[in-house]
C-alpha cells in the first residue's frame, strides 16, 4: 500500500540504522571508560576470552551488564512515555507524572528504612520487586481517582492527580529520610536520583521478558494508539473501545516504566524526550515513530549514564541527574513552544 511515501519508509529505515549505530558506538566507548581502565585495544581479545582475569571481570561483570541494563531501561521508559502521550493526548506526559517514580521510590524508602535489613546480596534482588509493587499501587491509587463510572478513565484528571500524588509522596519521603540513619539515607537518595544501581546480569534477565512481550504488543496496538492520540470522538466513531484500550495501554505503560525504574532508580524525562524527538523526525504515526523512539530512549540513557559515570571521579553523577539536566530545559522549550 502506497499510503506513505516510499521516501518516508526509507527515512524510517535510515533512522533505525542510524540510532542502532549510535547505540553500538556509545556502548563501545562506554566499555573502555570508567574507574578501572580497560584499553580499547584489549576489548576484542577480552571478548574472545584472551583477556586477563581483571579485564574479563571489568568487562563482563561491571561494564557490560550496566550498558545492557541502561539500554533496556531507556527503551522501556521511551515506550512507556510514548504510550502515555497517546492515551492522554498530551505531548508533555512522562511516566514520572503518573507517579511511577515516586511510587517506586516511596516503597523502596519504606522497605529500606524501616525493615531491619542490611544491604546484602539477596536483599538487593528484593528491591526491584518492592519498587515495582510500589509503582503499581500508586498508579492504581491515581487511576481510582481519575476514573468515572460512565466515561471511564479521564486523561486530564489522570495527569493532574498524578502530579499531585507524586509531589505528596516526594514530600513524605523527605520527611521519612530526615529522621533516618545517614548511611541508609545515602542509598535511598542515590536511588531516587537514578543511579542505575541494579547493574548485574540477573536484572537484565528480569527485564528482558517484559520488553520482548510489550514492545511487539505496543506495535500491535499502533493503530489504536494513533486514534487515541487523535481525538476521543474520532476514536469512538471508528469503533475503538475506549475504556478497554485505555486501561490495557495504561497498564502496558506502567509495567514498562515500573520495570525500568525499579532497576535503575528514579529517571525522568527519557519518556518525554525520546518520543517527542522521534515524532519530530518522522511524524506522529505510531507504526513509524515507535521503533525510533525506543532506540532513541535506549541510546539517551546509555549516553547519560556514560557521561555521568565519567564526569566526576570516582562515583560519577547519577544518570537520572544527567537526563534531568538535559531534559528539564527541553521540557521548558516544549512548554514555551506551546
Amino acid at each position, binding site marked *: *500500500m*502506497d*499510503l*506513505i*511515501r516510499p521516501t518516508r519508509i526509507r527515512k524510517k529505515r535510515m533512522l533505525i540504522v542510524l540510532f542502532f549505530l549510535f547505540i553500538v558506538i556509545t556502548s563501545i566507548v562506554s566499555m573502555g571508560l570508567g574507574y578501572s581502565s580497560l584499553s580499547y585495544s584489549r576489548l576484542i581479545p577480552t571478548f574472545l576470552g584472551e583477556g586477563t582475569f581483571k579485564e574479563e571481570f571489568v568487562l563482563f561483570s561491571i561494564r557490560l551488564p550496566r550498558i545492557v541494563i541502561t539500554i533496556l531501561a531507556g527503551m522501556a521508559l521511551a515506550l512507556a512515555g510514548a504510550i502515555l502521550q497517546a492515551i492522554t*493526548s498530551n505531548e508533555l506526559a512522562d511516566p514520572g507524572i503518573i507517579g511511577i517514580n515516586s511510587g517506586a521510590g516511596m516503597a523502596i524508602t519504606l522497605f529500606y528504612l524501616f525493615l531491619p535489613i542490611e544491604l546484602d546480596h539477596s536483599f538487593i534482588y528484593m528491591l526491584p520487586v518492592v519498587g515495582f509493587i510500589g509503582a503499581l499501587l500508586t498508579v492504581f491509587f491515581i487511576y481510582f481517582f481519575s476514573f468515572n463510572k*460512565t*466515561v471511564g478513565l479521564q486523561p486530564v484528571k489522570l495527569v493532574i492527580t498524578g502530579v499531585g500524588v507524586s509531589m505528596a509522596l516526594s514530600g513524605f519521603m523527605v520527611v521519612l529520610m530526615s529522621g533516618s540513619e545517614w548511611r541508609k539515607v545515602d542509598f535511598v537518595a542515590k536511588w531516587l536520583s537514578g543511579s542505575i544501581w541494579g547493574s548485574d546480569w540477573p536484572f537484565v534477565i528480569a527485564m528482558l521478558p517484559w520488553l520482548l512481550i510489550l514492545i511487539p504488543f505496543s*506495535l*500491535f496496538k*499502533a*493503530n489504536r494508539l*494513533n*486514534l487515541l*492520540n*487523535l*481525538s*476521543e*470522538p*474520532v476514536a*469512538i*466513531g*471508528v*469503533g*475503538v*473501545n475506549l475504556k478497554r484500550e485505555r486501561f490495557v495501554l495504561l497498564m502496558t505503560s506502567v509495567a514498562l516504566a515500573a520495570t525500568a525504574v525499579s532497576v535503575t532508580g528514579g529517571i525522568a524525562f527519557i519518556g518525554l524526550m525520546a518520543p517527542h524527538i522521534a*515524532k519530530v523526525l518522522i*511524524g*506522529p*504515526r505510531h507504526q513509524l515513530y515507535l521503533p525510533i523512539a525506543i532506540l532513541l530512549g535506549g541510546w539517551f540513557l546509555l549516553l547519560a549514564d556514560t557521561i555521568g559515570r565519567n564526569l566526576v571521579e570516582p562515583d560519577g553523577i547519577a544518570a537520572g541527574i544527567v537526563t534531568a539536566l538535559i531534559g528539564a530545559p527541553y521540557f521548558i522549550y516544549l512548554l514555551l513552544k506551546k
Partner: protein
Amino acid sequence: MVRLLVYDLNVSYEENLIVKDLNIHIPDKKITTIIGSNGCGKSTLLKAMTRIIPYRAGIIAFDGVRIEDEDTKSLAKKMAILPQITENAVGLTVGELVSYGRHPYQKGWGRLTQKDSEVIDWALEVTGTAAYKYQLIDTLSGGQRQRVWIAMSLAQETEMIFLDEPTTYLDIAHQLEILMLLQKLNKEQERTIVMVLHDINQAARFADYIIALKDGQVVKAGSVEEVIQREVLKEVFQIDAEIGRDIRTHKPMCISYDLLKGEECPNEKVTYSDTSVINART
C-alpha cells in the same frame, strides 16, 4: 423507513439536564438537519446518538438494537461521525488520516488490504483531495482539511454519516462546497446524512427533514416547508422572521429578521436579576 430511533431521551452533563424526554427518528437515505439556538442541546443530541457521550435515560436504537448494546466496532461499520474540527492531526499526511477510517474493518496488526487502499483512494477521489494524499494535514486550508475529514468518514463505508457543524470556520464559498458534496453523496450513493447546522437558510436549502430544538426538546420536526415557518422560528430562536422563497432554489428562506420586540433576551434577564441580588445585599 426508519433505522435510527430516539425515544424519551434524557442526556445530562453532570447534573444539568441538556436533552429532555426527546423523541425523534432519522429518515433513511435523507438529509436531516438539526437546528436550534446556542446551548439548545443539538450537539449533545448528535453526540448521544453516536455514542460519544452516554445518556441518562431513554432509548437510542439502531436497526432495533440499543446502540450501547451493540459492539462499538460493528456499529462503526454502520455510522460514521465527523466531530467539530479537531486540530490534533498535526504531522499526519492526508492519506494516513483517511486510512484511520478503515479501522472498523481491520484486524490484528492493521495492515491495509487491497480493498482498504481502494476504498481510501475512492474516498480521496470523491472529496477531491486525491492530489494532497501525501501532504501534511497542517499545510492544507480549512476547506481542504474539512474535505479530508469527510473523506475519512467516507472510508468507513457507512450508510449513515453524522456531522457536527461541518461548515464552522469556513468562508461562504467553502461552506457551500462542503454542503454540495454531502448532497452529492446523499443523492448518488443514498447515504443518510445527519448534521447540526447554524445557518437556517443552509438547512432549508439542503435538508429533506429538519429537527428544530429548544431547551433540549423538539419544537418541530418535519419537512422544510413545515419547519421553516414564522411561528417555529419565533419559538426556536426568539426572532421575528420574514419567510420568503429563494429565487434560485425555490426553497423557503428567511429573508430578514429582527429580535422579538418587548421580550428581553433570557441572558439579559439573568444579568438584571443578578444585579438586583447584589443591590439587595449591599
